[in-house]
């Protein structure tokens, strides 16, 4: 009997899956702590700093919630599109497009501007709708290319990110620039700012939007005929067609929803944190959000915990830099290693360990 033997079919009990995921996370943390050591820092201390501030302090937790909201929205967009069979990666683009649309609208409500001041709740619905529509169209173009011309949406959507970022760069250096030299817009009117919801922190109402969106996505996917059709189209287009589903139409719809969610992430960031549009407003959240979705295994219910975890890590990274002298960019390494290890750990389930092979073979001699 060999010690490590290849199975005929990989084991897939929930226990096995949980085990291999746990091994993966631990492995990622061990590898990252090697990097900590390279910096001359104590790994335990570093991890402590990384996780303490965002989760054990009130103010830090507020910041965690702030980081969570856009991550969750983008993760939800990823889930809706990928599970429908549309491999969209253009969330950086949707984010900034949504942020731009929102800023434009908000600036238009400044006193003396096109629309003029509005009471907050009257105003709130408008940027959500506009931003969602802008993101939906932005992603819809890519879906069109796939549906009509057979283009590869993975690469096309990656390219659209750069185009969108350049569009926004142009806007903040030109038409929308505030007087003065800096490439950013004027500050948005106070009346458009999202209210704070946790006393003593800067956590704003955006997290509520994220929670609401999570609920809506979960309910739609699980409990509506539309969600059923999206999921079936993504799992098995042949069976979907056989079941009478319009697979092409569902693809385009999935793109709309995903783009809209991505844009809402930008809205939340602009109205809740930055209060102005500027170059580099995304900070890579378009990709971190995808990673959060992957960690959540494309399950809407797991998005909030995963987003809180990764949002917290981003917050803690700054603390870690201050206290242990380790650059905050190490969190990118940890965040991506975890997912890579989880993916790689799948291979563990293909093998079986026969501990019996370790027992010494007792030889009996006969004369």
């Amino acid at each position, binding site marked *: 009997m060999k010690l490590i033997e290849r199975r005929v079919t990989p084991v897939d009990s929930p226990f096995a899956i949980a085990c291999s995921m746990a091994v993966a996370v631990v492995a990622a943390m061990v590898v990252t702590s090697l990097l900590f050591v390279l910096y001359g820092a104590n790994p335990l201390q570093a991890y402590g700093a990384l996780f303490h501030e965002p989760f054990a302090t009130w103010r830090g937790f507020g910041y965690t919630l702030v980081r969570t909201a856009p991550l969750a929205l983008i993760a939800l967009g990823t889930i809706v599109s990928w599970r429908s069979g549309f491999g969209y990666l253009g969330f950086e683009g949707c984010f900034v497009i949504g942020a731009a649309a929102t800023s434009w609208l908000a600036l238009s409500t400044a006193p003396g501007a096109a629309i003029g001041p509005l009471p907050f709740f009257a105003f709130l619905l408008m940027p959500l709708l506009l931003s969602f529509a802008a993101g939906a169209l932005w992603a819809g173009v890519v879906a069109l290319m796939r549906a009509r011309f057979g283009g590869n949406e993975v690469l096309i959507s990656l390219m659209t990110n750069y185009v969108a970022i350049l569009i926004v760069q142009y806007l903040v250096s030109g038409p929308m620039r505030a007087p003065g030299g800096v490439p950013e817009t004027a500050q948005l009117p106070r009346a458009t700012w999202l209210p704070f919801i946790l006393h003593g922190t800067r956590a704003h109402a955006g997290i509520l939007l994220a929670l609401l969106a999570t609920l809506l996505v979960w309910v739609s996917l699980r409990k509506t005929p539309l969600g059923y059709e999206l999921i079936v189209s993504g799992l098995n287009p042949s069976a979907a067609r056989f079941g009478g589903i319009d697979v092409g139409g569902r693809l385009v719809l999935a793109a709309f929803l995903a783009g809209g969610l991505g844009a809402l992430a930008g809205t939340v960031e602009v109205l809740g944190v930055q209060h102005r549009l500027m170059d580099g407003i995304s900070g890579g959240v378009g990709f971190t959000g995808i*990673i959060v979705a992957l960690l959540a295994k494309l399950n809407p219910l797991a998005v909030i915990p995963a987003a809180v975890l990764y949002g917290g890590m981003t917050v803690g990274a700054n603390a870690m830099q201050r206290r242990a002298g380790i650059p905050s960019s190490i969190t990118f390494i940890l965040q991506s290693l975890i997912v890579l290890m989880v993916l790689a750990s799948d291979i563990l389930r293909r093998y079986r360990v026969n501990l019996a092979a370790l027992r010494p073979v007792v030889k009996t001699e006969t004369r």
Partner: protein
Amino acid sequence: MNFHRLLTSAFFVTWLAASLRLSGPVLLAALGETFAECSGVLNVGIEGTILLGALASFLTAYVTGMVWMSLLAAMLTGVVFNLLLAWMYVTVRASQVVVGLVFNVLALGIAATVYRRALGESAGPQSVAMFPALHIPWLSGLPFLGPVLFGQTILFYLTLGLVLLAHVLLFRTRFGLALRAAGENPSAADAAGISVARMRYTGVLIGGATAGMAGAYLVLAQIGLFRESIVSGQGFIALGIVIFGRWSPWKAALAAIVFGACDALQLSLQLTGVNIPPQLLLSLPYIVTILAISGLFGGRAIQPAALMVPYAKD
């Protein structure tokens, strides 16, 4: 203005020379990626590998000042990291797009962390030795062709040589035939006694070597320093160039020059003082790539038939 004057005008010459120069990194990356994709693997992680290659070449040049050593270090880095990627793609058989995407984030993290560690937090951008522009005697004195074609760095000429080598390797050797078979019909390759896994590993590793070189090109022959945004999507554009070049090295070279031209247009127009928003020009390469791969010019029908399809023998 007559034709001769146009051709030799500063604008035109600068533009074309820059087009060729700027096409280098993207072309290098695309060459190696062509091998990977012909074997059946789509490596989205190429963006990250270029970044890491750039970093390796920068650090080596910073420490040793020797450009050829730095180039070698970059290639080695590319190969090592792509070994990890190849393992995930071919042996673990994880989703190629997901692994590549996550790897890019990892690469960014590694690059940022190692760079700051090596140079200290507060240091500003440091410049390093570069490959000098060669001025080939007599030829570089020719009007128009001289500065455009014969005043480039040796790395550029090396790249052109690699285009030829890639073409020969891919289409005129047994190895190339076997590699392409693995990407077109892995079962047929298997039935002919070829190891599909070995072909795919090789394709991805070749991609790693050239992506590393591309990173070195950026640092040592183009910009002269390192920053985290040095790649800016050129890895993804290389993927587009592979498609636009129909998985053929010399066509990829043409596509790369088109890309370089778009990129260079922005630099050259600045010379003439034309009042176009720079972002419009900067976005041109990306938009052109999108159009090229939108499928308007032939979509999935022409790609290697088994691209992105993992092969598992029972």
